[in-house]
């Protein structure tokens, strides 16, 4: 059969046109607009005046930007690697179970993941509330001082990180389980015949063969946690939001509380570039370690 290449190309273009149009309209165009906005002294809505690079120049001496930047970095450090390790440990445990018990245990670990963030917030607020939280009564019983967990800067980030790991690790566990099941049984049998210790088996069989999944989980977690907003917003409500700022929260605050669209856009651009740089670095690092093996 003769193929009309021109015609096929045309049909291909027509078929992808709706996607390209929507993608352009709701992603590419706003992104470009964001860059322009970041060079303007503009309110949240409506036109602004060109302000050069002023929005960027004030960032290094903007204290809140500093707070937001370091808090985001701190939060990423507290969640990405610890969260991945916790998920790996749990999935190693779950994989040793079988049948109904495994399904039950797995669903127990997965359950928090299906909760909306508002419910997660309520649950933990009830647990850790300074005046009425259940955990506080526990502290009372042991004669310890109550800790205002979500109201002090020392405890806030670690606590939110803990809640986040509790909330999201179900998904990572699933990914790890799938990865573990994909490792052929024969390799373990061969290793067992050679009298390999548990640790060596993990170190030389499970870990390297699971690496692609680990890399995937790390990347997903990294991008997700850089964009942290919901939990921080909810847990710092009625507390001290400005000491617990993270990047996305700060963008929200500049744009919606202070009505400064231009300055908010500048921060958004910085976050955008940060995410790109870190993702590329992460990807290269993964490739590098892959090649080494």
């Amino acid at each position, binding site marked *: 059969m003769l193929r009309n290449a021109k015609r096929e190309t045309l049909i291909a273009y027509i078929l992808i046109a709706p996607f390209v149009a929507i993608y352009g309209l709701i992603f590419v165009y706003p992104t470009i607009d964001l860059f322009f906005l970041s060079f303007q002294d503009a*309110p*949240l*809505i*409506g036109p602004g005046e060109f302000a050069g690079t002023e929005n960027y120049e004030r960032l290094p001496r903007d*204290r809140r930007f500093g707070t937001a930047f370091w808090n985001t970095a701190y939060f990423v450090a507290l969640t990405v690697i610890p969260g991945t390790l916790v998920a790996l440990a749990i999935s190693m445990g779950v994989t040793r179970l079988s049948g109904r018990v495994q399904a039950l245990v797995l669903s127990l670990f997965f359950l928090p993941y299906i909760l909306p963030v508002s419910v997660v917030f309520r649950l933990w607020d009830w647990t850790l*509330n*300074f*005046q*009425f939280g259940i955990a506080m009564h526990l502290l009372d019983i042991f004669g310890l001082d109550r800790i*205002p967990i979500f*109201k*002090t800067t020392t405890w806030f980030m670690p606590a939110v990180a803990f809640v986040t790991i509790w909330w999201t690790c179900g998904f990572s566990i699933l990914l790890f389980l799938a990865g573990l099941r994909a490792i052929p049984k024969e390799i373990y049998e061969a290793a067992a015949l050679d009298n390999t210790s548990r640790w060596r088996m993990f170190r030389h069989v499970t870990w390297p063969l699971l690496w692609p999944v680990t890399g995937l989980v790390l990347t997903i977690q990294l991008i997700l946690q850089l964009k942290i907003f919901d939990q921080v917003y909810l847990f710092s409500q*009625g*507390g*001290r*939001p*400005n*000491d617990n700022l993270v990047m996305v929260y700060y963008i929200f*605050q500049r744009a*919606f*509380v*202070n*009505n400064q669209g231009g300055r908010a856009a500048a921060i958004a651009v910085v976050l955008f570039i940060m995410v790109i740089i870190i993702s590329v670095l992460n990807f290269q690092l993964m490739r590098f370690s892959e090649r080494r093996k």
Partner: protein
Amino acid sequence: MRKILAIAASALLATSAAQAAETVVWWDFLGGGDGVRMKQMIADFNEGHEGEIEIDGTTLDWGVPFYTKVQTSVAVGEAPDIMTYHASRIPLAIKQGLLQEITDEDWQTMGLGEEDFADSIWDGVSADGKQYGVPLDTHPIVLYYNKDVLAEAGLLDENGQPKGLDSREGFNATLQALKDAESVKFPLASVTADGNFMFRTIYSLMGQQDGELMTDGEFLVGDNAEKLENALSVLQQWTNEGLQSTYTDYPATVALFTSGEAAMMINGVWEVPTMVDLHKEGKLFEWGAVELPVIFDHPATYSDSHVFAIPKGNDMSEEKRAAVLEVMSWMSKNSLFWATAGHIPANSNITAMDEYKAMEPNSTYSSLTANMIYDPKTPLAGVAGPIFDVMSTYFVPTLNGEMDPEEAVSEIQYELNDM
């Protein structure tokens, strides 16, 4: 084809508008006990205007979410016909171009005017000699107290009000006596975890020393910084001496008081319906509410007003606008019921009524209308606005004893002037 559809649709709309009542789309942010009262008022209005005007009301989330939605809806021309607004946010709203002016003609149509409102309230909706809203109420903060606990400790005077409301020493003594009596966990329930809320208390205490937050566009000029420091010191002292609850958020504060674990509470009048309803169900002790104690030179209480405003960004017909004016006028003239929500009606004809004067605890604290202070008039002010936001950051650590008042004030000064 599209044209025909459009014509058909507009014809349909036109005929239905001619036949049915004028529908007024209404947005408010009244989600608490007062929201229930407002729904009742809307129902009453609709009943009285059957076939003429119908209010289609929606309650949205208070604060930043509400004001963001207003802004975006005006921008795309989907704004409601009428909405509730905070007087303190009017300067910002004018800058954002969100509100329609209420003209002299409008006031005449409504049968209302400057003489119907207290000066401070009228001033709250005015800018450059123009008005941008119809005041519904004024809602200050008050001191709630547990009559049973105070009576037991011998701390009520002959009028049944707490002793020591006239001086810092006096009030401290009352708090200390409550602590010594050990019948409650805290003498005072205070929203110490929420700097946004505490703005009201601290600004009141500044007002008691004639302090100004903003003078000619500059923040905390001259000895105003010191006055803020004084105000913070009082509250920190209460924390240090174990007289008030620490790290307490808003719901927990109300719960501490209503459960009897705290003897007194500083909170907005909007919690009055909570108390009234609980008391009616027999779940609450005997209680009262009075004007804030005079800690410094003279009485002063921070207040704000709920007002009705007409947003820009909807092409209103003459008839629609007339209907909106009727709604605002009716609400103002029937705001006696609104007083059951704790708020003090803005319309002074209502507060002069005998029925109002017989209402408790409203009439006890309504004396404070003479001592009300409002936010500085700037686009940076207002509930959930930038000033609120900056100051609140430093209130929480200070009120809970983590930061010195002096340090807090210098940080606040730096950040306010950096905005």
